């Protein structure tokens, strides 16, 4: 129907440049004549309005008819091109190149702006990297210093300290033992082994039965005295605390 874009057959072989325009105009005129014929035919058909009731169905039927008609039209038609004379080719070529140039210019400007952005980014990142490297260097120095300190410490000093500590403790122990010994000598003198106390007590009991008491002298070892007193082997004199007697077991 409405196909001004349909290009006509190129039946003639035109070699003359100036005739190209005329040729094109002629073809357009032909197409217009065809259209007028079609228009006349169409005006002969009547009008048809729709009511709500029959609208859908009749429209669908009409659509089917038109679509089938269009389909057959498309199948019949073969693609046609305009006559490729020099003029036409030149104009077409120029147009294509203009378009291409425009597109390439756009691409160029986009790429340039992108480049600039990337350069800025790069500079920023570079600066950041430098700063980070400086930080890392100073951290490394610090780390090395600390590492050295730790090494010397753990190797010699601790060992020496422990040794001295040990020696000190041993000395102290010796001192304590000596002091303890002196203390014991002073307050708890060792018993004199040559004199037998038990013999003295027994002899006294039997020799002088009415006064079996023995005076406690310094040669008596006090803890021994305490021992025999506590266990009931000897008894104190009721009036004189410095005298003891042997218990009379046989009575």
């Amino acid at each position, binding site marked *: *129907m*409405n*196909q*001004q*874009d349909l290009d006509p057959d190129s039946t003639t072989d035109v070699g003359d440049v100036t005739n190209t325009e005329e040729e094109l105009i002629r073809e357009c005129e032909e197409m217009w004549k065809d*259209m*007028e014929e079609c*228009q006349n035919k*169409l*005006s002969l058909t009547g*009008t*048809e*309005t*729709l*009511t*709500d009731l029959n*609208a*859908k169905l*009749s*429209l*669908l039927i*009409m*659509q089917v008819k*038109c*679509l089938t008609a*269009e389909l057959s039209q498309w199948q019949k038609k073969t693609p046609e091109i305009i006559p490729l004379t020099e003029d036409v080719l030149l104009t077409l070529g120029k147009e294509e190149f203009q378009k291409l140039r425009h597109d390439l210019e756009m691409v160029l400007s986009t790429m340039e702006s992108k480049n600039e952005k990337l350069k800025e980014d790069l500079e920023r990142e570079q600066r950041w990297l430098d700063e980070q490297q400086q930080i890392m260097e100073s951290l490394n120095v610090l780390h090395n210093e600390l590492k050295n300190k730790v090494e010397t410490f753990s190797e010699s000093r601790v060992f020496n300290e422990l040794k001295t500590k040990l020696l000190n403790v041993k000395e102290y122990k010796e001192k304590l033992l000596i002091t303890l010994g002196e203390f014991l000598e002073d307050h708890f003198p060792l018993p004199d082994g040559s004199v037998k106390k038990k013999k003295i007590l027994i002899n006294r009991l039997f020799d002088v039965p009415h006064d079996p008491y023995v005076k406690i002298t310094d040669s008596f070892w006090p803890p021994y005295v305490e021992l025999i007193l506590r266990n009931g082997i000897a008894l104190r004199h009721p009036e004189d605390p410095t005298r003891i007697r042997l218990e009379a077991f046989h009575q």
Partner: protein
Amino acid sequence: MSVLRPLDKLPSLNTATILLVGTEDALLQQLVDSMLKEDCTSELKVHLAKSLPLPSSVNPPRIDLIVFVVNLHSKYSLQNTEESLHHVDASFFLGKVCFLATGAGRESHCSIHQHTVVKLVHTYQSPLLYCDLEVEGFQATMAQRLVRMLQMCDGHVPGVSALNLLSLLRSSEGPSLEDM
């Protein structure tokens, strides 16, 4: 001429004509201005009408696309559209008619239910576009869309006819539910 026919005149060279039918004058005028700002390969001619049939004094050239504008806020607008539809030739509905529903954004003001419009549109087998013509941005987008549709309807896009466009714009939901 009481009934609009799509092919009653020869097409004017390199022009595309669109007819907007609707009761909202101000909105339509704004839409027209936006459309004229769009660049279009052919010359654009816009006609406004409150309703069809067109008064006999007006004799427009061959019309390539009719857009019926329905305002969801007023029942009168829908009534007007329904009456105008009776004055359009059946062959227009093969892709050269489009419905535009405006005012769907403000749900509280809508006096017409969306279903009513959808049913009407399905009866006439035409595409339905939604647009809030009061909003600047939407209006500009809609203007662009209408210009593109117009270019296809008047044959300026090689290889696509109005009927093809109609098949592509058909909504996926089955009309059977609406008809029940």
